[in-house]
């Protein structure tokens, strides 16, 4: 098992190197001059532009620029933005916020999704099952933009102005974990719906399996049959889904972050691509790749725990 983990981690190195190169190249290939476009409508003083281009090595050929960047990375210097902010400081600050948001979303997703799916699977064909299925359908079809604004208005504004109950902040991350509840839910919305459906199908299928019938025949209590025998086997596809979703939740939170004014990496990435801030884009994407790799490794290891037949040598 230990050797397996080490092998997987070594495999990650070329992936990371390759992705920094590709991302650097992609941003490099974007049209327009990043310095000139910083100025907007007024013509920037060409002297100022020339000096800044020199400072940020923008006149050098691509490979030389990339070399400067990689050389810096190896000594722990991830470069600076055009506003002279250290990229490492910038990403560190934003990453914390994004982890908080993604984790809140993931926990809500796991609790609500698995909970509802379990409930629906055990009451299959009954009214509650149909109700849950219908509500997941609604959740899937309403865009994040809408859920975001509606919940912000209902819980953040209306609830406070009409009842004085000031629990859900409208925006920002000023109020500790409470700040992440509503945005976390909005971000997890669609995933909750998918996970509910996945749990329901997976569990319903397992409940019909031979070993479950055996367990029931042995006279085991229903709780034990569902909890220990059926659910554990049904979890494998769910864990895969959750693991892959973590990366999506972290990098794909642009809309949610902007509605709730959460200073995370989603928004930063969006803006940096727009402003062609190569070091920031590469830094963030590399970090996301790393998260994906680790989450996948973790999921693979969990398989072995959930299903003893799977072994890693």
């Amino acid at each position, binding site marked *: 098992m230990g050797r397996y983990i080490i092998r997987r981690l070594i495999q990650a190195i070329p992936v990371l190197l390759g992705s920094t190169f590709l991302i650097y190249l992609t941003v490099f290939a974007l049209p327009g001059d990043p310095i000139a476009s910083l100025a907007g*409508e007024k013509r920037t003083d060409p002297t100022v532009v020339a000096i800044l281009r020199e400072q940020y090595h923008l006149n050098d050929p691509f490979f030389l620029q990339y070399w400067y960047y990689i050389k810096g990375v190896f000594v722990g210097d991830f470069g600076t933005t055009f506003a002279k902010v250290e990229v490492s400081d910038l990403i560190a600050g934003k990453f914390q916020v994004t982890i908080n948001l993604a984790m809140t979303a993931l926990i809500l997703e796991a609790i609500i999704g698995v909970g509802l799916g379990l409930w629906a699977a055990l009451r299959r064909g009954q009214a509650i099952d149909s109700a849950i299925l219908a509500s997941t359908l609604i959740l899937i079809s309403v865009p994040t933009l809408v859920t975001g604004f509606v919940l912000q208005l209902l819980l953040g504004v209306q609830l406070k102005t009409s009842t004085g109950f000031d629990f859900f902040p409208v925006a920002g991350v*000023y109020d500790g974990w409470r700040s992440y509840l509503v945005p976390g839910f909005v971000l997890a919305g669609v995933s909750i719906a998918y996970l509910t459906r996945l749990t329901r199908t997976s569990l319903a299928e397992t409940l019909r399996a031979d070993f479950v019938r055996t367990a029931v025949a042995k006279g085991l209590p229903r709780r034990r049959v569902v909890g220990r025998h059926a659910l554990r086997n049904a979890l494998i596809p769910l864990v895969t889904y959750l693991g892959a979703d973590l990366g999506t939740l972290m990098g794909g939170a642009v809309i949610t972050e902007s509605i709730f004014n959460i200073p995370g990496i989603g928004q930063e990435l969006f803006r940096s691509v727009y402003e062609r801030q190569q070091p920031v884009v590469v830094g963030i994407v590399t970090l996301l790749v790393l998260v994906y790799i680790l989450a996948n490794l973790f999921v693979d290891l969990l398989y072995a725990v959930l299903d003893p037949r799977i072994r890693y040598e």
Partner: protein
Amino acid sequence: MRVTKGAKIIAGTALLALAVAACGGGGGTSSTPDATGGGDAAVRMEIGEPQKLFYPSDTTETEGAEVLAALFTPLVKYDDDKKVVNDLAASIESTDNKVWTVKLKPGYTWHNGEPVIAQNYVDAWNFASYQDNAQSASYFFGRIAGYADLAPGEGKTPKAKEMSGLKAVDDSTLEVTLTNPFSQFPVMLGYTAFYPLPKAAFDASGKVTEDYARKPIGNGYFQIDKAYGKGTDQTIDLTLYDKYPGEKPKFNKLQFKVYTKTETAYNDLRAGHVDIIDQLAASNISSAKTELGERYIEQPDAGIGYIGVPLKYNPEYENVKIREAISMAIDRKTISETVFSGTRSPADDFINPAIDGYKQGACAVCTYDPAKAKAAYAEANGPKLLELGYNADGGHKEWIEAVAINLRANLGVEVTVKPFEKFQAILDELDKKTYKGMFRMGWAIDYPSPENYLTPIFSTDAAKTGSNYAGYSNKEFDELLVKGDTAPTVEEGVALYRQAADILIKELPYIPVYFYKINAGFSEHVKGVKINLLNQVEWTSVEKV
């Protein structure tokens, strides 16, 4: 047994995740004080993230300027009548508009206790002008004698580090010599780029340090609480500076809250988490009018939007009758009210109503008259195909499309609309002659003088160094500008600039379409919110309720 182990791992992961989430919540963020609390509770204002660290001479956008304006006191400010009044300056005098003597009021100190002296201005302005420092507002100092030595241009090495035209005669007297007389010089001095800098701002080599730009020591009524973590900090907190000798604000704490979307800030204002928004999102304006009532502010903003005509690139637009016809075919009122949801007003001059020198209804051909437009266009034999270019990054698509619809319907011509990635891209293509059509253009002023709507955009010199993208050139116009610059007083200068603007109306190098408006709102926790000509809140008039 394995089952239990698995369950443990899952439970463990969940706990870990919770712990991570909890830690993050505690660190790095501060809770926001509520204005209702009275006492030391802060007045909170919405801003967008400042583009740069706080270098006054590198701040050319409104968000950073808003913060700096609370930390610094300028030499002059602008009163309710759009006139310049002295602030930190005791007097600004000149006999020939060329050599200006600025006397400073006594008693002003930096937040570190040192007195504000004339040398602070000399140091700051020299730093701003020296080209290797790459300060984006350096062009403001271009009129000062000796500027060319510090900023000789691309690829050349500066000859000096100090401008010959700047002299601190004594601690309270600053002497500024300009290359050419300029009557509007005092008007410029209220702008961010002209703030002085204390000794503590500079390192041994005479550069402003990054530490200073994060935690600027100002000379204004507020001081900054801690170094600004750009990109990560969501608030910028200021506290009243007790030793400030001038008129102080009536509250102790000011907090800027950084938002990426003003819609979000408006919801926060409704819920009582933010007090002032200086520009509401267009989508919020109709509800703000009813919900905020008296607390909704609408006033002219000094910006202006045009349709630019590529005079030097395309002879098809040479005949002024064609430009007049295009202008008359544009329904400015509907565009302002519908497309812009009332955040603009129809333009009827080249000078904005917020600024001294504006004449209501000056531009007769800016009135919508489709019948006359059609006749004039046909008579002048205007081109059958018109092109309209816009930069797709600034929300201009809608109004440009609306103009295109107007032109198609009223002139009976074909109009193609072409989006460009950024404004710079339009200019590049015009230069390369790959695009020959009209283009959208906007202007926000640098200092509130009518001169600023004319020289940088329409003077012959500005075709090379400024924003004269039309390539317009008119000798009479240039001469009037020089006369205005050399006029004995600011007021007489304004009258001459007015005449210059009238030439533009006759020749229409650009077609003015709309003036910007300020649509601000504030919460019931504050009163007396006023916004000045530079789009900055007048903190001395704001009071907590």
